């Protein structure tokens, strides 16, 4: 087998065209930015038919031209993606093969975007996202990794090799290096993005890493929100001593340098004392409290319905809680091991707990601030006059009206959690060293960075694109929700 080149037969046609288009576009943006400093301010003027007049003059024409170049770039990228599907193996180079591996992701993305844009007027805030360019780009990046993790994690589709498989002779080899002869039939013949220090396929490790990140980051953020909401609402609503105490505790955790906290919580000696298990037992109880109080405050006047709903929600959650918290290896065993179906590896549990612990005080402060603001509104006064209980007002009056800022913060916080997970991996804390998550792979790659730079780059770029996507998505959501 020949080694693959980067661009294959695109190298002579589409790639140079794309490069030129991108450079022209960037130059155009710079020129426009400089010109807009000196240009007179835009005054919106309407045409006779009610549409807005386009901007005239040199700047206006430049703007139009640049938009066309941007469309051309999008078109060339789409052409590269589509053409590479129909090329035989190896013709389209590393780029083409990587694009081909992601085929199910592209199809899902196209379907998602087509359906969402068609029905965007009926989809509320989610639909409005498709009115803003920034929001669409962010959503696309996020969904790319969501679909990748689904197809890799559930269907085992995109990865070319096993993420832990080592093949001798491909240690630290450059992208596109062929696998030595003598493998089984159907064995993928190249390491698309090269091999790492232990001769494992970097591409497969990167896509497998997305599964770990995509499972832990959103879940940990959900838990942090449960904790933050359950404590922040009463702190803001009641105020007084409770508020002072909780705010002091939150500031205490926030004043802790994050890395110091991680080092203190995640070292094997501390894990051996079972401290993370106790923290998990404390933090994981909050979803139960949250849902229990939420249902009870609403339906307590209808006892039969209340009991039924509470049972339906709390019994599965409670069983899940006992299964997750109790662990045969830890000092905290409150559930018979025979009935313990879920065993979270202690490394993942520790990472999860510390990330939730670091995130929840910030959520607490945001929720508290929102509750302080919203409790002065008229509908809260109306509910108080009706004689509603305080928890009903907090969870069914204040919380739904705080959803806008909370959704935006949720997106940002998943990104921040991803960064924290990467930080943990970067210092080799928590997750096992062979784990393919992005932080750990960056950590492995950085040790030989000055000699072999290629193993550290794919996970770094993957992490960057996911966090960037989440930030752009949050920005788009904020912009669109402010338009109301």
């Amino acid at each position, binding site marked *: 087998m020949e080694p693959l080149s980067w661009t294959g037969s695109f190298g002579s046609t589409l790639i140079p065209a794309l490069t030129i288009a991108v450079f022209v576009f960037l130059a155009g943006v710079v020129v426009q930015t400089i010109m807009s400093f000196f240009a007179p301010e835009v005054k919106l003027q309407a045409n006779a038919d009610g549409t807005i007049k386009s901007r005239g003059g040199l700047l206006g024409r430049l703007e139009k031209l640049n938009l066309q170049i941007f469309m051309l770039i999008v078109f060339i990228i789409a052409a590269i993606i589509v053409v590479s599907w129909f090329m035989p193996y190896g013709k389209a180079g590393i780029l083409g093969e990587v694009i081909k591996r992601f085929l199910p992701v592209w199809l899902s993305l196209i379907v998602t975007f087509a359906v969402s844009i068609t029905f965007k007027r009926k989809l509320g805030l989610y639909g409005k996202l498709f009115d803003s360019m920034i929001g669409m780009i962010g959503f696309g990046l996020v969904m790319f990794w969501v679909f990748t993790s689904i197809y890799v994690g559930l269907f085992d589709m995109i990865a070319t090799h096993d993420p832990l498989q080592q093949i001798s002779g491909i240690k630290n080899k450059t992208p596109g290096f062929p696998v030595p002869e003598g493998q089984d039939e159907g064995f993928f013949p190249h390491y698309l993005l090269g091999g790492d220090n232990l001769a494992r396929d970097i591409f497969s490790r990167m896509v497998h890493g997305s599964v770990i990140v995509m499972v832990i980051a959103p879940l940990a953020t959900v838990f942090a929100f449960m904790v933050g909401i359950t404590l922040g609402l009463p702190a803001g609503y009641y105020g007084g001593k409770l508020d002072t105490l909780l705010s*002091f505790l939150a500031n205490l955790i926030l004043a802790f*340098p994050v*890395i110091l906290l991680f080092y*203190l919580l995640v*070292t094997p000696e501390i894990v051996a004392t079972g401290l993370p298990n106790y923290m998990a037992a404390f933090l994981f109880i909050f979803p139960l409290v949250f849902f229990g109080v939420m249902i009870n405050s609403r339906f307590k006047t209808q006892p039969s319905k209340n009991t039924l709903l509470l049972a339906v929600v709390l019994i599965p959650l409670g069983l899940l809680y006992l299964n997750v918290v109790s662990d045969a290896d830890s000092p905290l065993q409150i559930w018979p091991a025979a009935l313990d179906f879920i065993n979270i590896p202690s490394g993942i549990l520790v990472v999860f707990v510390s990330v939730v612990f670091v995130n929840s005080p910030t959520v607490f402060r945001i929720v508290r601030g929102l509750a302080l603001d919203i409790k002065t509104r008229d509908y809260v006064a109306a509910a108080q006059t009706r004689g509603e209980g305080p928890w009903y007002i907090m969870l069914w009056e204040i919380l739904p009206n705080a959803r806008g800022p909370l959704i935006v913060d949720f997106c940002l916080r998943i990104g921040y959690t991803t960064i924290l997970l*990467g930080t943990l991996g970067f*210092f080799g804390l928590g997750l096992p060293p062979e784990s393919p998550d992005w932080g750990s792979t*960056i950590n492995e790659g950085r040790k030989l960075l*000055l000699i072999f730079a290629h193993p550290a780059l794919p996970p770094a770029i993957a992490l*960057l694109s996911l966090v960037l996507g989440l930030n752009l998505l949050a920005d788009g959501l904020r912009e669109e929700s402010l338009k109301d």
Partner: protein
Amino acid sequence: MGLFILRRLGVMILTALCLTFIVFWLTNLFPNLEKLAKTQGNFRMSDEAVATYLGNRGYTQPLPVKYGQWLGVLPGYVIEGTDGETRARCAAASSPTEDTPTFCGVLQGEWGQSTVFKDSVSKIVGTRLALTGKLMFWVMMVMVPGALIIGVLAGMREGSRTDRSLSTVSIISTATPEYVSGVIFIAVFATPLFGMQWFKGTATSAMDGANFENFFLPVITIALYGMGYIARMTRASMTEVMTAQYIRTARLKGVSFPNIVMKHALRNALIAPFTVIMLQFPWLLNGVVIVETLFNYKGFGWTLVQAASNNDIELLLGVSVVSVFVVLFTQLISDIGYVFLNPRIRIS
């Protein structure tokens, strides 16, 4: 004003006590002490030997007592050990003499001894802090003006093309954590991979003589992550000021746009970013730890990692005290500075 500062100081001291107590508790948990005994004494110690080793050196006293001694408000222990030797905390675990002080804790300036570096903690922390100070100085020199310029340019005409492109730049910079940008910078600018080998990939030589070649990458890596956030805050504050009544008055008077921005808007727009810059310090500390590890620059952050991964209890405590105080002190400055800079609060 005086009362406000006093109250803030009180809360700050209480927070510092709580935080140091938590760190003290976590570092003095039994598995850590056991590991310490085994690394300092003998790796094949039996459990009883570990217990007597720790007992002789005062580690088995109740936690509040140990914390009081470490802090310097309780007299240091003097224990006649099972091996017949008398050890006193204030005589560096040897028998006390006439002029051994009774109290020796952090308050008296006795920070203890590092087991890894074989040196006194205060000396290590001092030299390492100076090195990190140099790094932080240059980070601030790059980050603050850069962020303020981006923020002001983006905020002076809200919704314009400049605003949109600069806001996107700041989003990208907040989405790039140090370990990602650092790795990308090293791969691009310090290896021959892309043909742009302009800088050095390690900053070890910058500890003695920093120059552009070996110090630029670490500085820009830290600065970039913080820059976006400060720029966005500056932009928000600038757009708010630009819609104020007095700016409209100035416009109607016929003041030119550059003059409005420079003379009228800027002063009020820079109050909020000051707070944000001060509150950015805890995050910078994070960045410093990552970047110093990545670039092998042996400063404060590098010391933190070494102390934590080698179970160097006294050094880790010293490092934690310093970092907690840096964080709390910047919070205090930001609170006071906000009151001082904002004429509406200052005068009332």
